[in-house]
């Protein structure tokens, strides 16, 4: 059982990347407008995050240092600072969106406006990050996020035309009546969400929290190769059910309520309840992931003591960063900014920061000073370089495509 639970870090990290609030809505929107024509993007994203998460996990297990720590060592303090500012901003705004997402899930259940739920969600989040053990958080939210499997099973319950779906899934272009720029915009957003920088920072810091040593290399790899594809599969559940339910009738998904509706159509109230529970756990898990990552990145850049394995008084600066980040996120939400749109903007901006995140990881993973004989083999390097090229292409294309389509209009 303990061995089975050891993979919850990977699952939680992947949930935060693939099915956080922005992804749930934008993946479902992609399904409702383009059918399964974005399936290949999910596959490309899953492989990419596996390649780099495997490197980060290996670096952490062997050198016992989280990757963000090493980025400054290899890029120097100036570029390291630019990287810190970029990833902190993305992490902070994603944190705001996730707190909003938890509140939106509670709105679906209670009917009361999400703005009323925002402060409550933020307080519970902070309490969890202040009091609860890292392993407990990871297990509770990693596992309950798996309730989203209901959407995957729902694919079969909705009795789709399998041949038609297969055709859609092997399409690499927008269907008739839709345009290329919007299709590309969504593709970049889905790819960037699969590879959001805080995933690798959280994953490797989590490895340090769990006190990984070189003997845990296998645990790290199981986490990567089980957790991330599972997260990607959950995202596919949203993509496919929206493609089946909404695409044929020409409805564009734009709210959380619509995104979980197919679960209700397949399994009635229980299905809908499970989907909402899954969304709640996934967004709360993503809020924890981003809240902690905000503290991790700032502390690791400056060399401060950090982590939940220490008493809060031993890591006062780390806990202040987490607390202040949550307060800033709440302040941003209370301006009534739409949390879902917030993440859509962030996905595109994160595409721009991605190269700065992944290049140093590739460099460090080849450094014998840290890794000895566990440096990247030729396969990891070829994959790493291919993905670096994809990441740079996405970064270059992100802003023009965003402006051209007016945010995917």
């Amino acid at each position, binding site marked *: 059982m303990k061995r089975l639970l050891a993979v919850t870090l990977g699952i939680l990290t992947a949930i935060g990347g693939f099915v956080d609030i922005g992804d749930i809505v934008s993946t479902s929107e992609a399904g409702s407008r383009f059918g399964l024509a974005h399936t290949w993007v999910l596959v490309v994203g899953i492989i990419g995050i596996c390649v780099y998460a495997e490197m980060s996990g290996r670096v952490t297990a062997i*050198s*016992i*240092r989280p990757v963000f*720590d*090493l980025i*400054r*060592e290899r890029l*120097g*303090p*100036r570029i*390291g600072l630019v990287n810190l500012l970029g990833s902190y901003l993305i992490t902070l705004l994603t944190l705001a969106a996730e707190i909003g997402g938890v509140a939106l899930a509670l709105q679906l259940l209670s009917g009361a406006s999400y703005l009323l739920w925002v402060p409550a969600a933020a307080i519970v989040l902070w309490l969890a990050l*202040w*009091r609860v*053990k*890292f392993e407990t958080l990871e297990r509770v939210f990693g596992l309950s996020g798996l309730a989203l499997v209901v959407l995957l099973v729902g694919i079969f319950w909705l009795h789709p035309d399998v041949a038609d779906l297969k055709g859609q899934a092997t399409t690499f272009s927008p269907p008739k009546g839709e345009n290329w720029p919007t299709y590309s915009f969504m593709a970049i957003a889905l790819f960037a969400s699969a590879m959001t920088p805080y995933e690798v920072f959280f994953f490797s810091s989590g490895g340090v929290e769990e006190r990984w040593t070189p003997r845990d290399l296998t645990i790290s790899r199981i986490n990567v190769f089980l957790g991330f594809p599972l997260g990607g599969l959950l995202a596919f559940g949203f993509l496919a059910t929206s493609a089946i339910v909404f695409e044929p009738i020409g409805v564009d998904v734009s709210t959380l309520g619509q995104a979980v509706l197919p679960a209700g159509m397949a399994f009635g109230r229980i299905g809908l309840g499970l989907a909402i529970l899954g969304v709640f756990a996934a967004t709360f898990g993503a809020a924890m992931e981003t809240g902690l990552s905000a503290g991790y990145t700032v*502390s690791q850049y*400056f*060399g*401060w*003591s*950090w*982590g*939940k*394995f*220490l*008493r*809060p*008084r*031993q890591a*006062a*600066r780390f*806990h*202040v960063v987490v607390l202040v980040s949550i307060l800033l996120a709440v302040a941003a939400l209370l301006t009534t900014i739409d949390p879902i749109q917030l993440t859509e903007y962030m996905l595109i901006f994160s595409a721009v920061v991605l190269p700065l995140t992944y290049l140093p990881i590739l460099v460090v993973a080849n450094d014998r*000073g*840290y890794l000895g004989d566990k440096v990247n083999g030729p396969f990891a390097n070829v994959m790493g370089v291919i993905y670096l090229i994809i990441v740079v292409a996405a970064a270059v294309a992100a802003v023009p495509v965003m402006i051209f389509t007016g945010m995917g209009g």
Partner: protein
Amino acid sequence: MPLLIAFDLLDRQILDRDGIPVGKVDDVELSPDSRYVVALLTGQRALGARFGGALGRWITGTAARLDTDRTGPRRIEYALVAKVDSAVHLSVRRELLTPPALEAWLDEHVIGRIPGASDAG
């Protein structure tokens, strides 16, 4: 032991003997003939000095405002370094070193006042 200061020391994490982070090697102090490292300098004052320019002055200035009873950055004698690998390991516990000013202030005024601050996570 010969070390490449820029490659092996600068920006590396300093850990105490229990593995708890103490700071980054933000700068080093060399002996007058520049042949030995005498001390590691850590904290935002040392970091700001390395940045230079307006940003560097701002970083150093804000750090110095908190840290009124010391004239320079935090110094750790190189004699306390036990081992350098993916991090710089000290031979002492961090309680024996002067605490960073910001950490001490936040502990006393913010974090230490919240219930549960001394409980293990």
